[in-house]
């Protein structure tokens, strides 16, 4: 026999912030009448040190095994209360947080009765869920200390060195016969007015790598097979005619980039006088003095800044560097640089000034009129429309240099499949988040850096190599990755092996066996619930947000006067952030909604929406992060599509699909949420005045 459920409810006054609007003693009395509730406490400030100590004492004295806190907002205060109940010896997953300040007293300041009733109902919903809560625990997956670095360019070498300098093992795999990547093909690197031979930098890094006892290097290597996940990657690599199998805990992808195939542009490939920047670099690096070349024309943006491809990001600085070199080497050359926009940032303009001084002529041409190649009597020339003079010029060209676009390495297509990550049309890997996850893939333990992500300069590649090393070192230093207890659970009894869950999981946490049987790596699961909501056989549940718990909240919300109510599902991140912002801003809106928190809007299954309508709800709101933000990559997009399907299903069942609303709201957008509430109430034709003190049926007077 397990312990009988003993729920304690702690209602906070927040000084007058809650108690000034909500009749807190009435909420306390109401809560005391709810089933399984054995103790209710009113606190002036539940988060104060003395109140927390009191809560812990009560938990022990009353032998509580569930705690409901009705106070401000879980977004700021849940960690505090979780830590408190944990110290009192209770599993922190047995805590449920009810928001009666941001969702009640601050937004219904002039409707005391309705506010009190809403607070009571929110507590009822919280208790209904709390009764069904189960213990949870953080889940750990052990992680070893070997990192596989794919790509031996400067980013990869830097990453390997920084991994190995911590005492971890690094395995560096490079497909070319020598380390160095792109940098080993170019002549010099500039920074400010400093110019350094690239060979020096490559040699220095490669020498450190080769001397480092913690780094194994495979050059001329072919990856025969690769797979796995953090803590458990397996690689088969073939180098020097020998195959070897290697286990690694983490992976850094630094496969670099290459120039696009310039064939077809300005007769590149047919005429040796037409070269790309990289080909020019290689000639300069070999010490080619370009004898006989008197007229040089450099054309920018070849294959870039068009419908299919963006700015190459580095071409302007490269072109200015090389133009200066060709103009200033004493050979008396005429150098023309034809451009659309000069993308020179920070100190790069210093080189521009030097190039102008050295006689390089810069001509701007229009976005829609590219220069043309002419050939008369065996001599090459370029016809360009000079924007400033507004006329066409013909420029002789003994050497025509094309500043081309770049694309990811040819290995990307295969690697992205093996590593279960994505890349864009140009073969550049896609990072987890453009701003805040620039070195990460969605799954933990695998990072990226350097030109494999997008074209960049040397110092940026070095920084990314170091940063990527840090990202994979965190789990290696700890020895594990850990998931919060809010994770999926699979019950495969009814599973039909459709594979949808594995296909949809943004974190690669669900793997399919050869028989297409799914299995879950809980430590990789982030608990978004996308799989659970879409599983056609309902085989997946989410700890702390199970179907039963969410259904209990829906039922509790609609137990009384359902036709006046809106059931809202809000994601923990932005949607609840918007709700809280409306609260902080004291935006007043009608009190008809009963909000249920989910981690991601993708958790909300159609069946739960239907349940709300079956129980008589006037309307249902599903709210998630504003596009394109989602804290689980693309959960809101999945939810949006699913709710479209839900509308069709509802219509078939005879419910007006217009009663299901979706809202995509940023955490800063209080006005948007408050506005949506007003609009919904109006559109659903709900009575303006909603609520009275709770009816006596639910409460058992005590």
């Amino acid at each position, binding site marked *: 026999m397990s312990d009988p459920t003993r729920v304690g409810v702690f209602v906070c006054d927040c000084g007058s912030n809650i108690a000034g609007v909500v009749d807190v003693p009435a909420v306390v009395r109401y809560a005391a009448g709810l089933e399984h509730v054995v103790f209710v406490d009113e606190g002036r*400030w539940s988060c104060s040190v003395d109140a927390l100590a009191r809560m812990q004492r009560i938990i022990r004295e009353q032998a509580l095994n569930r705690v409901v806190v009705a106070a401000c907002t879980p977004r700021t205060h849940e960690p505090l209360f979780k830590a408190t109940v944990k110290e009192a010896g209770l599993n922190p997953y047995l805590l449920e947080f009810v928001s009666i300040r941001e969702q009640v007293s601050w937004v219904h300041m002039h409707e005391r009765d309705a506010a009190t009733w809403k607070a009571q109902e929110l507590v009822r919903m919280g208790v209904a869920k709390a009764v069904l809560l189960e213990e949870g625990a953080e889940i750990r997956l052990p992680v070893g200390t070997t990192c596989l670095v794919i790509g031996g360019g400067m980013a990869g070498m830097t990453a390997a060195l920084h991994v190995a300098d911590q005492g971890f093992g690094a395995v560096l795999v490079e497909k070319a016969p020598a380390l160095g990547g792109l940098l080993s093909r170019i002549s010099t690197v500039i920074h400010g007015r400093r110019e350094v031979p690239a060979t020096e930098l490559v040699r220095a890094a490669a020498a450190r790598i080769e001397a480092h006892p913690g780094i194994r290097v495979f050059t001329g290597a072919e990856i025969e097979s690769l797979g796995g996940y953090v803590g458990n990657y397996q690689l088969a690599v073939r180098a020097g005619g020998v195959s070897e199998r290697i286990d690694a805990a983490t992976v850094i992808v630094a496969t670099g980039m290459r120039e696009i195939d310039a064939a077809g542009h300005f007769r590149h490939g047919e005429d040796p006088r037409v070269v790309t920047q990289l080909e020019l670099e290689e000639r300069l690096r070999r010490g080619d003095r370009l004898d006989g070349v008197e007229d040089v024309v450099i054309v920018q943006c070849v294959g870039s800044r068009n419908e299919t491809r*963006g*700015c190459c990001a580095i071409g302007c600085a490269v072109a200015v560097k090389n133009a200066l070199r060709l103009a200033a080497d004493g050979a008396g050359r005429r150098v023309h640089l034809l451009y659309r926009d000069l993308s020179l940032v920070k100190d790069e303009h210093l080189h521009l000034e030097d190039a102008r001084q050295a006689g390089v002529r810069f001509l701007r041409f229009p976005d829609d009129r590219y220069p043309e190649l002419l050939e008369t009597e065996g001599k090459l020339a370029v016809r360009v429309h000079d924007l400033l003079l507004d006329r066409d010029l013909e420029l002789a060209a003994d050497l025509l240099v094309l500043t081309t676009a770049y694309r990811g390495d040819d290995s990307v297509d295969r690697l992205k499949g093996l590593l279960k990550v994505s890349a864009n049309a140009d073969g550049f890997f896609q990072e987890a988040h453009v701003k805040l996850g620039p070195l990460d893939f969605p799954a933990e333990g695998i990072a990226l850096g350097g030109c494999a992500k997008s074209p960049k300069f040397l110092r940026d590649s070095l920084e990314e190599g170091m940063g990527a090393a840090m990202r994979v070192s965190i789990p290696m*230093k700890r020895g594990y990755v850990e998931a919060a207890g809010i994770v999926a659970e699979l019950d495969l009894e009814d599973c039909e092996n459709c594979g949808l869950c594995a296909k949809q999981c943004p974190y690669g946490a669900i793997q399919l066996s050869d028989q297409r049987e799914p299995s879950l790596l809980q430590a990789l699961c982030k608990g978004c619930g996308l799989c659970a909501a879409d599983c056609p056989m309902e085989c997946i549940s989410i700890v702390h947000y199970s179907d039963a718990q969410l259904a209990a909240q829906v039922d509790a919300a609609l137990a009384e006067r359902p036709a006046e109510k809106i059931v809202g599902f809000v994601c923990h991140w932005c949607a609840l952030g918007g709700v809280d912002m409306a609260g902080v801003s004291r935006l007043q809106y009608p009190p008809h909604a009963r909000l249920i928190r989910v981690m991601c809007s993708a958790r909300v299954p159609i069946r739960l929406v239907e349940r709300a309508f079956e129980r008589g709800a006037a309307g249902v709101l599903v709210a998630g992060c504003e596009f394109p933000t989602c804290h689980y990559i693309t959960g809101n997009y999945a939810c949006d599509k699913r709710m479209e399907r839900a509308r069709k299903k509802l219509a078939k069942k005879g419910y007006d699909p217009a009663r299901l609303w979706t809202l995509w709201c940023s955490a*800063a957008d209080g006005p948007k949420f408050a506005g949506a509430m007003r609009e919904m109430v109006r559109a659903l034709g709900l009575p303006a005045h909603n609520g009275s003190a709770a009816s006596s049926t639910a409460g058992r007077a005590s």
Partner: protein
Amino acid sequence: MEAPPDSRAPILVIGAGIAGITCALNAADYGAAVLLVDDTPSIGGLMARLDKTFPTNDCSICIEAPRMYEVGNHPNIEILANTTVKKANRKNGRFAVRLVTRPRYVDPEKCTGCGACIDACPVRVPDELDGKIGGTRKLIYMPFPQAVPNVVLIDPRCRSGAMRAQGACVGGCVVDCSQCRECPIALCVKACQKEGKDAIRLWQAATSRNIEVSAIVVATGVMDVRPSRGLHGYDLYPNVITYTQFERLMNAGGPTAGRIVRPSDGRPAHKIAWLQCAGRGLAGGIPYCSKVCCMVATKQTLITKEHDAAVETVVFLNDLKACGKGFWAFHEKARAAGVRHVKARPYDVVEDPATRNLVLRYEDLETGELATEEAELVVLSTGLKASDRNEGLARTLGLELDEHGFFREPDPLAAPLETAVAGIYLCGGATGPIDIAEAVVQGSAAALKAVLCGSRKEHACPTRPA
């Protein structure tokens, strides 16, 4: 998420913008103890004040606030807001630092951020960042709603009596606030006590703390350049504002709740002009390209069009900098939305006194001709400059600044983010103008440098590879 706290001396991260936050979280997740100091009352930095981020238009605070809460709750991180570094002496391979925390005049242990005191305060003053566009705050205030720590603070001018004329309730006593342990007159004190709290401490003084740290990461960030008076009519005409002020104007959490209105009359602006590279190369301006302004303007025009597609938007620019992943497509999206781009060199801006509209005269760089354009609101993209904290901090830490006031790296091509002092590293805007993603990369990289340094037993930090 707990990792065993490192028994070694903590790492000091100076500056808690997104670079410093990222650095602190990486180092703390790694297991190191971190002291994160910022000389403003909240962590978050410039990013916390932005509306959206390019090139995806993600809401800035939506993605940053969870990181801020994570910092606030991390067992390995201690936040010291309102704090400056006064001394840092090398000692046995470590740094003995002195940290001075300015008073908030509020006990952070007792304040719950409820805001009752703010309601009670009788004086409203222009907000530091938003004043120009009508943003105000009280003399006791929360820096912004998502502030970490979520604790109010009192404007020191209030206590000193400087705000008496504006109606401040304190500051006119015979003895000054530092002498009293009780205040019978301050309305904020009464409001706080009425809430059952007694968090306000008008007599609070600065506190200092001496501590040994194993490594230091400088993350002082960038600042937007304030135009000099008269630049394109700035400070002469109310409807000429900066790009950071415009950012606040379009922010749902800003002073106008996201309504893009003119400061002169509060009416929606129907035609808005952006002047890129404003003040660049002029006295008071910066000589270099800040790299982000083109995309900031692209973002701002797009959001303006999203608010109201009928608003006319025109960007006067020199060279378009779209050098980043997805930036060009972002620019094309703006063009498709009807944003006009004119390659131009602006001459002057004159106000029409009747309408308070602004007439811009410029040289069209594609035709070479002089032209004019009228707009209802003019936005100056003035760029990013080095933090004004850098000079003092460089002296304290024994570091050098470059000619623009950013921290100098002796060998950026072989050892980026390192300084001339072993054990002191850089990240984010301390190194130069930078966007958020690059600041995050550098934050992770500098964290690794710092933990590697902190773990050396021989008390010698590695500098450049030999």
